[in-house]
């Protein structure tokens, strides 16, 4: 077992004790897999997978100006966000580029914001430089974060946390798990029903033990986390999103609330409003690749004359479809579902078709919805 030059997370020994292979990720040693990515992926889709996402940044944004301050950097309508509800949003730069993607929850008198691990220090610096005086930003370094994802996550978690089954998709609340205070929301990044569980780092091994002891639950590594979110059509920051990408190009216009589209007042609005009006030059799409060979991040998208006109930003083998799938940025003329594109990787050409995402249907727990 080679050691990696990275910081340990609170569950480091817990992962190693369960046979995880650890790799460096976002400055931490993290489990890439336990028994194998395919098995872990399928287990999550059929039962429930436990993910350690403690590398992510958990922030509290507080103070009377917190809502207005955040609205200068996020295109979300936080004004209509009810207590205990969360929303996917984007931290934006002045030119409309995406600084990070995040989840923001209204939690009583403050907002609880979860950002990506690799970008959290930069996000904090950006927020501190841009939020009005009087807004207090607290990075809760002592909090760990677990995700329990899959169709049986609710069965396993409600045994330990009675009442948690009443949460609807994208809502959260304060609970106790094994005597430990936890903030639990019905959310995640796999396309499945599931929960995210924020607990103190000092208690997370106990909580992980409790969850992993449930018969539906197995620990799942980063490898399957990536293949699950790819199948779910969910972009990964640093790969499918970056500061050179706008929300309209990234096909994340759902994250730009109606009121904000009209009013603006957030970083990048001018460019974003223009792209909403006129359409972007390029757009993130899903690709179904012919054959069996995966086409991965960095592969080129070619036009009919062989010129590079776009890039694959995520790609791999879909365990559920048993076929290669990818996300790419393509010119809008080729972005409609059914369009054919040519890809080039290591000197080899591949044919692919633009398909609607998600590749594998979402199965979120929406209240009032059937199933």
């Amino acid at each position: 077992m080679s050691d990696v030059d990275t910081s340990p997370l609170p569950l480091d020994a817990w992962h190693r004790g369960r046979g995880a292979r650890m790799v460096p990720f976002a400055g931490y040693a993290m489990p890439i897999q336990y028994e194998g990515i395919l098995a872990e992926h399928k287990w999550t889709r059929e039962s429930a997978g436990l993910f350690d996402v403690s590398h992510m940044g958990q922030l509290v944004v507080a103070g009377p100006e917190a809502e207005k301050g955040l609205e200068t950097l996020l295109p979300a309508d936080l004004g209509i966000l009810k207590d205990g509800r969360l929303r996917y949003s984007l931290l934006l730069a002045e030119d409309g580029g995406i600084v990070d993607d995040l989840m923001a929850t209204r939690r009583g008198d403050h907002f609880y914001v979860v950002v990506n691990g690799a970008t959290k220090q930069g996000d904090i610096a950006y927020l501190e430089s841009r939020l009005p005086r009087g807004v207090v930003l607290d990075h809760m370094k002592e909090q760990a974060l677990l995700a329990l994802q899959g169709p049986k996550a609710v069965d396993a978690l409600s045994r330990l946390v009675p009442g948690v089954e009443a949460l609807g998709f994208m809502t959260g609340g304060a609970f106790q798990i094994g005597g430990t205070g936890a903030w639990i929301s019905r959310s995640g990044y796999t396309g499945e029903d599931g929960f995210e569980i924020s607990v103190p780092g000092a208690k997370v091994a106990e909580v992980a033990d409790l969850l992993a002891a449930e018969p539906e639950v197995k620990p799942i590594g980063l490898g399957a986390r990536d293949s699950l979110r790819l199948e779910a059509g969910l972009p990964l920051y640093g790969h499918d999103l970056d500061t050179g990408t706008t929300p309209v190009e990234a096909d994340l216009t759902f994250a730009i609330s109606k009121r904000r589209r009209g009013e603006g007042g957030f970083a990048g609005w001018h460019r974003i409003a223009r792209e909403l009006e006129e359409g972007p030059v390029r757009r993130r799409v899903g690709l179904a690749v012919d054959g069996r060979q995966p086409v991965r991040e960095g592969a080129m998208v070619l036009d009919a004359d062989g010129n590079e006109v776009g890039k694959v930003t995520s790609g791999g083998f879909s365990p559920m479809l048993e076929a290669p799938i990818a996300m790419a940025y393509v010119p809008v003329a080729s972005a409609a579902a059914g369009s054919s594109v040519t890809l080039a990787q290591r000197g080899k050409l591949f044919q692919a078709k633009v398909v609607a995402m998600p590749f594998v249907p979402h199965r979120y727990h929406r209240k009032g919805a059937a199933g």
Partner: protein
Amino acid sequence: MTEYYTEEHEWIRVEGDLATVGITDFAQGQLGDVVFVELPEAGREVTKGGEAAVVESVKAASDVYAPVSGEVTGANQALVDDPALANTDPEGEGWFFRLRLSDTSELDGLMDAAAYKSFCDSQ
């Protein structure tokens, strides 16, 4: 029949001037779930250290280098059809391709099973 191993975690099983090549159990463990292989066609000349095959796991793509020089005499179609054989039986049903050796002296620098085992233990 003699078995040799390389530092690139391939095995070579040699009878006379005919060799069968595959990846070792250690290699498949490192790669993870194999989902695709591309094997050389019969008749192709491969050179020791040159690219001979591609193996892709869920995680990543890796090249398989020819451990010795020679002419490819056949490839394992069963592995193309079911790439998971590289995980379940890497040193048997999951073989990659066969070669007619052009220079048997190239085998001299390779490891035997015992040397390969200590090589893996040191990795």
